[in-house]
């Protein structure tokens, strides 16, 4: 449908429905260099009872689910500002109740990080949104492609799911 024709998208994490949808929407997938779209997918979080979790395991979950996302987003926004053009950031993760307490903490933080970055970077033309879902079907790819595109130019700071158990 050409939603993303001429746009370069960097996808961190391996979510096949997303890369397929981005490509079919006309985006060029890239691994480094200047890009217009940053998508950050969470890795599969390790689920274990909280009282059996070490601090290192807890830290790893927060690092993957929150810290790395912030640092990647910050670098992307710097690059957008330097280039003098806007961009779109989309965080993709699991529903907060889905993968254990450490992941829940990371995702809760991510939701409010999304809303905060959306306001801080609004006038840089950088939109920030989050999709939290256990679904990896085609709808996820289409939703992400939509959020990355100019059709979603008025959607920023939004946190959404896909299935009824997501949010």
């Amino acid at each position, binding site marked *: *449908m050409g*939603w993303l024709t001429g746009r370069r998208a960097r996808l961190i994490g391996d979510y096949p429905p997303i890369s397929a949808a981005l490509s079919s929407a006309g985006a060029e997938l890239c691994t480094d260099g200047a890009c217009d779209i940053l998508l950050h997918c969470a890795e599969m979080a390790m689920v274990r009872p909280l009282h059996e979790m070490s601090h290192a395991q807890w830290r790893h979950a927060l690092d993957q689910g929150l810290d790395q996302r912030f640092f990647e987003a910050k670098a992307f926004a710097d690059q957008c500002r330097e280039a*003098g*053009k*806007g961009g779109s950031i989309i965080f993709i993760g699991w529903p907060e109740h889905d993968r254990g307490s450490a992941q829940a903490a990371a995702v809760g933080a991510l939701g409010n990080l999304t*809303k905060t970055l*959306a*306001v801080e970077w*609004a*006038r*840089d*033309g950088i*939109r920030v949104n989050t999709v939290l879902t256990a*679904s990896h*079907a*085609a*709808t*996820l790819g*289409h*939703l992400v492609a*939509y959020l990355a*595109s*100019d*059709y*979603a*130019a*008025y*959607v*920023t*700071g*939004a946190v*959404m*799911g*896909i*299935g*009824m158990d*997501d*949010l």
Partner: protein
Amino acid sequence: MPVPDHHIVAEPPPFDKPPYPSDIFARQVVLVTGGGSGMGLAMAQAFAQGGASVAVVGRSLERAQEGAATIEAIGGKTHAISCDVRKADKVAAAFDEAERALGPVSLLANNAGANFPVLAEAISVNAWNAVTRIAIDGTFLCSSEFVRRRIAQGHGGAIVNNSAQYIWTGFPGDAHSAAAKTAQATMTRAMAREWAGYGIRVNAVAAGFFPHAASTRGDGNDAIEPLQNMIPAGRTGRIREFGWLAALTCSPLFSGMTGQVIVQDGGESLRRSLMMPDFIPPRERANGPWGWQ
């Protein structure tokens, strides 16, 4: 106040470039309540751009017909119907009429609503009932009528509700609409759960400010310009982007989506600052309860 030149303001593609092919809703019939003007008309046009036949429903037949005329102008099949969505028998009759004219209704857009700024203590019983029952009872009556028919026909379907960005915060000067729009959003989740087994999806758009000719202050430049700079995105919404998102939630592209309330407000509902302007009670605002009239 104008947005400074060095700020980047993203715009959606033009009206003639909808985000889906012109046959994505082929053989589908959508019933849009309050479809004769404003946000309902934007939904109706978006569905028509995807090839749906559109039943334009409104309290006023004349306004519904005006809306239907704009659908015809872009090549859509349409039929205008007068209906008070607060009355179950009228709702059933509207579905009957839509089906006679266009075929079985397979998609529903609950948009009918009324809204006007008024202090809570000045809301009359009639005003409260009008605003809340059009949105709450109207959404219930239209959705349940729609779903009973879909179940009887053995087919799934999709519903989209027009909710509002102030459902998380309330809206001083708008107690009736704040209550009603939040009821719609929570109904969206409950209905999605109840009807998932029938293949019926229910989603909502929590819409920000999308000026149109029938807005409280219209959509002229003098009405919009003072509002542009207060919104993080640097502009008010373009009504086509609301219509397109509403239609997308009902499209096969989003066939896995249900129970979602998607905020589309350019960041308007988000907190901007720890420090806020001095609080003036809505009652004491010189220029009305919404503060900008």
